[in-house]
């Protein structure tokens, strides 16, 4: 199974790493396979996590990471033959409902597993109430407990608010804090397994650092952590070892400190990847596509900037700093916004823009919430993709479906959508592939202004390069691209210019060669430093 000849654990007869002689792994999963319909999503995957270990789990989109985790959670039944051994004791597979919790495993699922229409308090109690044998609930006690937990984690959220009223970052905090608390309470001394499926995308940098501190504290106490991420730097920073999945198969397990960035990429993608890098420098001095003037939306205040044809302009800042509100407001998707946007020689008042009007001005917007706002999971790839261009496929007899399907499958080839089956439901694609579909949905309209919110969130390195190429191609054809993202590395790769936000305002601008991952992170944090004064000012 091990790919490397100089496997550091090759000396172990049973293939299992041991830190202390005779110590059983916290989790040993063997021969886990899972078939959805006709696709083998997991193929004979085995994984061992030692007590006190942070184990990374990586892989391209759709490689089966979340499926593996959901199998441990008892949501999916693995194919027969799978085995699960925890601390030397056989555990049943398929996992019975609530079984994971009883065995001291707790999760932060990729979709956070929160119920938006319920209160924070109820969500905090969710896992406990799901399996408790206890009959009644003492709300007063529960609330005091949750308040106490929040205090310990230094979270300032009213337990009685609805989750739907909270920003994504807060939701992530709740899910994370719930999982940490749960593993503390349910696992025995020196035991427990915390599984984090991509917890970081929604977190600000400071939040990621806090998370890592917590993770270290947890493993110091003897518990183990499985950590899923696409950010190789994060993986190298926090994990002891990492397992890489490729197309549902085990691609290898490496000691994180010993593998370099390229090695990871090679394992994930299966080949060497040339990282996309746009030609730096000022955007070609072309006409201004859009001028945004004194735009205020939600927390964003008095935002003013121009964007030129063919320019890729990044907007960034800490989560909650309002940079991601800008594209939403320009597209007319955020009620109560003010300001004006001049595009195509017309000046539009922001409060009067609706998505339909924005589209009429050839503006396109791809929201971050993939299946909630950007595409409909229960409809097919073809239907999702064809939505903005239906008019072009009208024939005398109405819409020409064969032509639409041909068009969609061409786009699928162009953007490397896997599987490229126009009739397949969008929800059955992995996150990255779904993102490619939705990007293609808008790129085919050749918009004058393309606005992307976290376009590569949850997208693997390989797919990411394809998306970057697509963005680059569009910009070369004259499309102005506005990218809102917290991912500094990505912005550094693709942007001509980056605007950094703090407390709703643009606080600095980076151009050309000044844009690097480090400079962006630095500006973001520096802008944030004198926080207290600015809070007053904004309030």
């Amino acid at each position, binding site marked *: 199974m091990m790919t490397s000849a100089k496997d550091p654990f090759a000396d172990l007869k049973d293939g299992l790493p041991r830190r202390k002689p005779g110590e059983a792994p916290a989790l040993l999963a063997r021969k886990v396979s899972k078939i959805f319909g006709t696709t083998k999503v997991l193929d004979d995957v085995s994984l061992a996590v030692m007590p006190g270990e942070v184990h990374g789990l990586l892989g391209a989109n759709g490689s089966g990471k979340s499926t593996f985790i959901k199998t441990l959670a008892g949501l999916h039944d693995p194919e027969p033959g799978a085995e699960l051994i925890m601390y030397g004791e056989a555990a049943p597979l398929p996992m019975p409902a609530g079984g994971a919790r009883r065995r001291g495993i707790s999760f932060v699922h990729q979709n956070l597993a929160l119920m938006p229409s319920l209160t924070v308090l109820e969500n905090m109690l969710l896992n406990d109430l799901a399996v408790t044998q206890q009959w009644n609930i003492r709300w007063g006690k529960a609330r005091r407990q949750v308040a106490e937990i929040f205090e310990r984690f230094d979270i300032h959220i009213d337990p009685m608010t609805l989750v739907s009223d909270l920003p994504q970052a807060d939701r992530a905090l709740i899910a994370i804090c719930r999982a940490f608390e749960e593993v503390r309470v349910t696992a025995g001394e020196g035991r427990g397994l915390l599984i984090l499926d991509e917890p970081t995308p929604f977190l600000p940098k400071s939040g990621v650092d806090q998370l890592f501190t917590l993770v270290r504290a947890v493993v110091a106490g003897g518990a183990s952590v499985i950590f899923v991420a696409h950010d190789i730097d994060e993986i190298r920073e926090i994990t002891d070892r990492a397992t890489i999945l490729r197309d549902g198969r085990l691609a290898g397990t490496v000691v994180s400190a010993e593998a370099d960035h390229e090695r990871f990429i090679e394992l994930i993608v299966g080949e060497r990847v040339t990282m996309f890098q746009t030609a730096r420098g000022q955007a070609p001095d072309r006409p201004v596509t859009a001028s945004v003037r004194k735009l205020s939306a939600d927390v964003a205040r008095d935002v003013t900037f121009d964007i030129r044809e063919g320019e890729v302009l990044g907007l960034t800042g800490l989560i909650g700093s309002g940079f991601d509100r800008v594209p939403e407001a320009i*597209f007319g998707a955020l009620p109560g916004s003010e300001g004006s946007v001049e595009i195509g020689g017309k000046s539009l008042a922001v409060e009067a823009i609706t998505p339909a009007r924005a589209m009429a001005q050839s503006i396109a917007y791809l929201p971050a919430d993939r299946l909630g706002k950007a595409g*409909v999971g229960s*409809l097919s790839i073809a239907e999702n993709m064809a939505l903005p261009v*239906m008019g072009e496929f009208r024939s005398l007899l*109405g819409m020409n*479906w*064969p032509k639409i399907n041909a068009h969609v499958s061409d786009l699928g080839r162009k953007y490397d959508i896997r599987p490229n089956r126009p*009739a397949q439901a969008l929800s*059955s694609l992995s996150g990255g592939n779904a993102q490619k579909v939705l990007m293609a949905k808008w790129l085919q309209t050749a918009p004058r202004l393309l606005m992307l919110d976290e376009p590569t969130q949850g997208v693997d390195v390989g797919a990411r390069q394809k998306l970057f190429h697509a963005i680059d191609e569009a910009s070369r054809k004259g499309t102005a691209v506005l990218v809102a993202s917290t991912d500094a590395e990505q912005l550094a790769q693709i942007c001509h210019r980056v605007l950094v936000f703090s407390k709703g305002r643009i606080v600095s601008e980076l151009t050309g060669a000044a844009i690097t991952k480090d400079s962006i992170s630095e500006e973001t944090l520096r802008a944030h430093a004198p926080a207290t004064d600015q809070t007053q000012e904004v309030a």
Partner: protein
Amino acid sequence: MTAPDITPPAAAPRWREINWAGLAESYALVAALVVLFCIFAMLLPTTFFTWANVSTMLGSQAVLVFLTLALIIPLTTGDFDLSVAAILTISAMTIAVLNARMGVALPVAILAALCVGAIAGAANAFFILYFRIPSLIVTLGMGTFINGLTLWMSNSATIGGIDFALVMAVVGTRFLGIPLAFYYAILMAAAIWYVFGFTAMGRRLLFVGRGREVARLSGIQVDRVRFASLMASAMIAALAGVLYAGTIGAADPNSGNTFLLPAFAAAFLGATAITPGRFNPVGSVVAVYFIVIGITGLTMLGIQSFVQNLFYGGALVSAVALSQLVRKREEQQVG
């Protein structure tokens, strides 16, 4: 509705190949209809299996087909319309009151009935869209309210004596031996089939039903689409009322309401056929006639009327259960 080569996801290994499971699923209800027909044809060769009977069955259910078609439009945009039966009733009653009692000319009376339908639809849409109340609640309340209006208009009485021209235009005239009402229903179904499957409007309806927010951010004016669908539903229900008045030449304030549950049953049963998982007009028509064949056959066999209820309920549940077996019992979003 999707084009023929769009097949359901799970069962499509390669999407140009013939997908037998998909076909079986799509045409199971049609097959069941044929089998049921054949069974009764064999049991009752001289009465059931006659052109007279077939044309009668076809001609007599146009009202139910219309009402089912009225339902599937808002169901596609994710709204319930429980007021369609009440609208049918008030529309028929409007014609009766205006034409038979007050002597207003038939075309004017029909126009008035359609206006009443439009007002009802607009009222539904107002409460649903302006106040953001779930459609189920609004149309439940509105249906009851409209029933009250119908009782008031009619003084709770049946009003007969509607201009015979209407009856002639609905069931009195035949083409190929089948009353015209049938052709109206087929035309309406064909129109909706075309709109659902081959127009941008149809896509918009579907997207609004499946993902409001996605639709909005794709530039679809969601409220306008929902308004249109609620209006269309009310107007088609009002047309069903015109047909109903034409079928019986009279209007009474209660009987129309009993069509509500059969229409819902047919809409959901129809969503298991042709393009499974989506409310579709062809499936609705098949569903209505499937049930009619069963009920007619049972009646002709002289079986007691309670058996018809058993058949109705049993057929609905077991047809859907069978279609779920074909899909390996996977949960479906119907919409």
